[in-house]
């Protein structure tokens, strides 16, 4: 019996090792099964100038792994398969380029084997060769065509990726971002309007929610007095909770007008949070992506301010009940507040979800830190002993965070709308 238990335990551990092994093989950016000489090793220790430790070749970088893992991509990677997604690229010089990302020949780590019309796929993310001399059309690239190096720009370290093609190095540009260089992005030579992994995940969740709630609504429409059944009885308490605890207290007698908006926010955020939690399912980090939360915050901003009543604007522009000399100061503060409110909504959600995802990836990475990325099998034992319980704990915590953040976003939105539509008598 004792032997039996040991056997069962070892079976579980073996299974966990295999699962994590698969996970690392596909999902983790730094994978060193091929003798520690793939693109990244070169990046860090081959051509990289700034950070040459040179002590051991197979260094595992959990931070980069995590960053890669949570980013938006032009490929939907499921671990065992890479699902190509459509690419809609726009550049000033070439105009629109539309094709499937499978045209890149998605290889290891989502690195493409081909360049298509001046675009390449590096770590599942499309980049552009901003060089007119590079040939257009589908161009086959050589072995390990991507060169990573760290350069210092304005005292900040920045990763620079280049394409090595026929003995020449072509610098690769990221897609344009709207941060104005604040986050290391900025406007570049092309825009990516592709339905990326995040867009696809968003669409999936939107469709799922639509069909689920359509089904529920149909049951209500058939007979409103019938006792709830199935998915309806699961969703109804949540719906009533948001309705009674969020919409009604904050919005007063006009709660019905804004209820669908709040419900959309809550259920969409919750669904996306939970969807991103499912292991081996792409781990789409939609709600942890600042762009997505910015979209929600923008919509919230317009909903709040377009519905603002006279009292609200009075409070913003010329605060009643304070001395005149204070009023201009408060006006400045209030106008700043108009933008800070959605800004905090945007940052809170993205930061919470991104942090959660990163911590999970890093806890999983503990295994690869301890076993030197698969080179030191004895190190796997403490690695597993640490990473499995910590990851499980973090995932449980993330389930809670998923709910809490969806709820917080909704309740704060409700309070902002409530403040805007409040009428004093």
């Amino acid at each position, binding site marked *: 019996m004792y032997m039996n238990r040991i056997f069962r335990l070892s079976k579980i551990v073996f299974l966990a090792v295999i699962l994590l092994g698969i996970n690392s093989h596909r999902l983790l950016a730094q994978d060193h099964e091929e003798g520690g000489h793939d693109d990244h090793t070169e990046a860090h220790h081959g051509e990289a100038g700034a950070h040459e430790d040179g002590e051991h070749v197979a260094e595992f*970088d959990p*931070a*980069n792994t995590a*960053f890669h893992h949570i*980013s*938006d991509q032009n490929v939907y990677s499921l671990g065992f398969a890479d699902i190509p997604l459509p690419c*809609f690229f726009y550049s000033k010089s070439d105009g629109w380029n539309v094709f499937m990302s499978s045209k890149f020949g998605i290889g290891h780590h989502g690195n493409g084997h081909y360049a298509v019309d001046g675009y390449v796929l590096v770590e599942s*993310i499309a980049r552009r060769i901003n060089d007119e001399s590079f040939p257009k059309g589908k161009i086959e690239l050589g072995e390990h065509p991507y060169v990573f190096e*760290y350069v210092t720009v304005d005292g900040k370290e*920045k*990763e620079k990726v280049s394409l090595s093609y026929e003995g020449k190095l072509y610098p690769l540009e*990221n*897609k*344009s*971002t*709207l*941060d104005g260089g604040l*986050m*290391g*992005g900025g406007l570049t030579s092309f*825009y990516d*309007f592709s*339905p*990326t992994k*995040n*867009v696809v995940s*968003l*669409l999936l969740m*939107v469709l799922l*929610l*639509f069909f689920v*709630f*359509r089904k*529920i*609504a149909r049951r*209500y429409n058939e007979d*409103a*007095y019938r006792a709830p059944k199935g998915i309806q009885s699961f969703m*109804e308490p949540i*719906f*009533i909770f948001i*309705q009674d605890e969020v919409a009604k207290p904050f919005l007063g007698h006009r709660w019905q007008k804004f*209820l*669908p*908006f709040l*419900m*959309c926010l809550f259920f*969409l955020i919750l669904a996306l949070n939970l969807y991103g939690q499912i292991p081996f399912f792409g781990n789409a*980090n939609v709600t*942890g*992506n*600042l*762009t997505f939360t*910015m*979209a*929600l915050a*923008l*919509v919230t901003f317009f909903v709040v301010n377009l519905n603002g009543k006279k009292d609200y604007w009075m409070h913003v522009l010329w605060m009643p009940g304070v001395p005149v000399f204070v009023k201009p100061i408060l006006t400045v503060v209030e106008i700043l507040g108009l933008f800070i409110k959605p800004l905090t909504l945007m940052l809170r959600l*993205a930061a919470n979800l*991104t942090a959660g995802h990163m911590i999970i990836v890093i806890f999983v990475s503990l295994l690869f830190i301890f076993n030197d990325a698969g080179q030191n099998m004895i190190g796997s034992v403490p690695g597993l002993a640490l990473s499995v319980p910590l990851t499980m704990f973090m995932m449980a915590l993330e389930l809670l965070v998923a709910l809490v953040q969806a709820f917080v976003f909704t309740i704060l939105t409700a309070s902002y709308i409530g403040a805007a539509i409040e009428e004093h008598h």
Partner: protein
Amino acid sequence: MFVLAEFNVLRPEPGLLFWSILIFVIFWYLMSKFAFRPIAQALIKRENHIQDALNDAKKAKDELRKIQTENSKLMEEARAERSKMLKEAKEHRNQIVAEARVAAKEEANKIVAQANQEIESLKKTALLDVKNQVSNIALEVAEKVIQKKLSDDAGQMEYLNDLVKDINLS
């Protein structure tokens, strides 16, 4: 080494922003029209329905309680009525019995009186009869005496007196 290698989650991308807003607005419109509004309406309808049903139930309960109190009151009254009626019947019976007794007594007295009267009259008749017979007998005796022994006046007188005496005594 901490490099924001591909940390694009913190960079607002116009493409993703465009898709997110577009999808969210369409989602909002569709959900509002086909799901959340109908559900909210149905829930309000059901809530009102439940409230009405509860109110009705309360009303019905109150009504029932009222009816019950009324019923018990009626029962109480009926019970009082019954005992009263029973009492009256008893009294009535006693009265009837008493009256009957009095009547019977009177009747009996009357019958007795009548009987006495009859007896009296019969007695009188009988006495009259006896007197008649006595006087007849006396006459007969007298006749016989007169016929037989008219010789001895003294003895005859004595004898006559004795006879008369006997007649008066009886």
